[in-house]
């Protein structure tokens, strides 16, 4: 995708004369801009997040948004008198997204210029054009899946987790155990494929090759007798993170090859990064086959190489295309961490006759 043409992941809204007509500090009876709720709700449905940067009194502004019944749509609102560039910085840190996927909407040219001077790759829009948002190509994502329109809920659950983690003073193991995490490993089904396609686009760090797979590619592998497409889902006491990882295996009677392995960055701090790999190693041992993995180093995925190394994979071949082959002699089999309940829902009578 071209620079500056990335899909927008979050809109940061000003309030006075942007979301509503008038200035809240001067008069309490501000009115919503016509049709603004429809715009916000539709973008939310598409999986685009909303946040706020407004120079106002925090409590009064949030009270007003809740009166309009739209407060729930805004994640990590920044309402204070500091520079808006600083507000943007905090929002991207809290959401863990790149600034070039943010659209900042404000009626004042001064604010847009100030933000742009600190964050040159951000996109800005004069709020008088808010009615054009729904048709803008960068606000019409390639993927609208079940996972997209739950995205805001996931972030809200994440805010609760972060708050609890920050106030928790006991050992980390107990905190993780208290989350009651459940990690489900299953065969991919057709309704998972959009989300898996999206994962291959969005995941950079725990990603073994950086290869992008289309819906059609994935469907072919899912139906192939000599491949297996495994998907995993994570949930905890706050809710589900959705489908957060995949593994694509090539299977023959002598060896299995992990063609692709990836795990969403959203769950990296939850200690689940190695669970899927451990599962595959255990199964290969049971099936008495050789196990190897394809790896392509990128500038972001060293963590995946280390994960393979610490799961006893060793580099055995360097291909001319820059990929390497890692092999596992299955002499070391790790167990799952005690604080994660791992459910293996793989149909034993599946098409994989070689097993």
């Amino acid at each position: 995708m071209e620079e500056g043409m990335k899909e927008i992941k979050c809109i940061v809204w000003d309030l006075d004369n942007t979301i509503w007509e008038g200035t809240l500090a001067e008069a309490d009876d501000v009115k919503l801009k016509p049709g603004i709720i429809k715009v916000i709700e539709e973008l939310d449905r598409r999986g685009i997040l909303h946040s706020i940067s407004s120079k106002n009194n925090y409590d009064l502004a949030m009270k007003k948004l809740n009166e309009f019944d739209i407060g729930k749509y805004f994640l990590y609102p920044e309402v204070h008198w500091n520079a808006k560039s600083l507000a943007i910085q905090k929002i991207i840190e809290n959401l863990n997204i790149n600034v070039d996927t943010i659209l900042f909407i404000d009626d004042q040219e001064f604010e847009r210029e100030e933000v742009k001077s600190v964050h040159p790759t951000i996109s800005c829009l004069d709020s008088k054009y808010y009615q054009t948002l729904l048709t803008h190509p960068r606000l019409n994502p390639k993927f609208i899946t079940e996972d997209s329109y739950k995205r805001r809920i996931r972030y809200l659950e994440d805010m609760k987790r972060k708050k609890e983690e920050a106030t928790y003073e006991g050992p980390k193991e107990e905190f993780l155990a208290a989350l009651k995490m459940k990690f489900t490993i299953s065969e991919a089904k057709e309704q998972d494929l959009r989300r898996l396609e999206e994962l291959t686009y969005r995941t950079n760090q725990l990603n073994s090759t950086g290869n992008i797979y289309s819906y059609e590619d994935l469907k072919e592998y899912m139906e192939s007798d000599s491949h297996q497409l495994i998907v995993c889902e994570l949930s905890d006491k706050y809710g589900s993170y959705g489908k957060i990882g995949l593994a694509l295996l090539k299977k023959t009677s002598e060896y299995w090859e992990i063609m692709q392995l990836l795990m969403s960055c959203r769950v990296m701090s939850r200690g689940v990064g190695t669970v899927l790999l451990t599962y595959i190693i255990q199964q290969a041992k049971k099936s008495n086959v050789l196990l190897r993995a394809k790896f392509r180093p990128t500038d972001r995925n060293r963590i995946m190489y280390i994960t393979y190394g610490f799961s006893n994979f060793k580099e055995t071949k360097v291909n001319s295309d820059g990929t390497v082959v890692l092999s596992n002699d299955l002499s070391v089999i790790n167990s799952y961490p005690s604080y994660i309940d791992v459910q293996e829902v793989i149909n034993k009578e599946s098409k994989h006759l070689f097993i």
Partner: protein
Amino acid sequence: MESIQEIEKTVRSFLEENMIFYERENSLDNDDNIFELGFVDSMFALSLVTFIENNFEIKVESEDLQISNFSSINNITNFIQNKRQSRVIE
């Protein structure tokens, strides 16, 4: 350059602060296998490697990323020692 004892002490305090232990009451012996004792997940693995590189000014190469180099306080200490010595020879 730090002595072996100093390296050992630095490595131990890093592990004790950052590892998620199954059984916390047990203190860590120099030969305890941390891969068996606690769960070494991706985040921990990355932070351990980064810590060793920054703190001891060595570069962990692909061929170094083997369990045997990182599986206990003693092994990590030896690994750091060896890396530093080979650097001096160069």
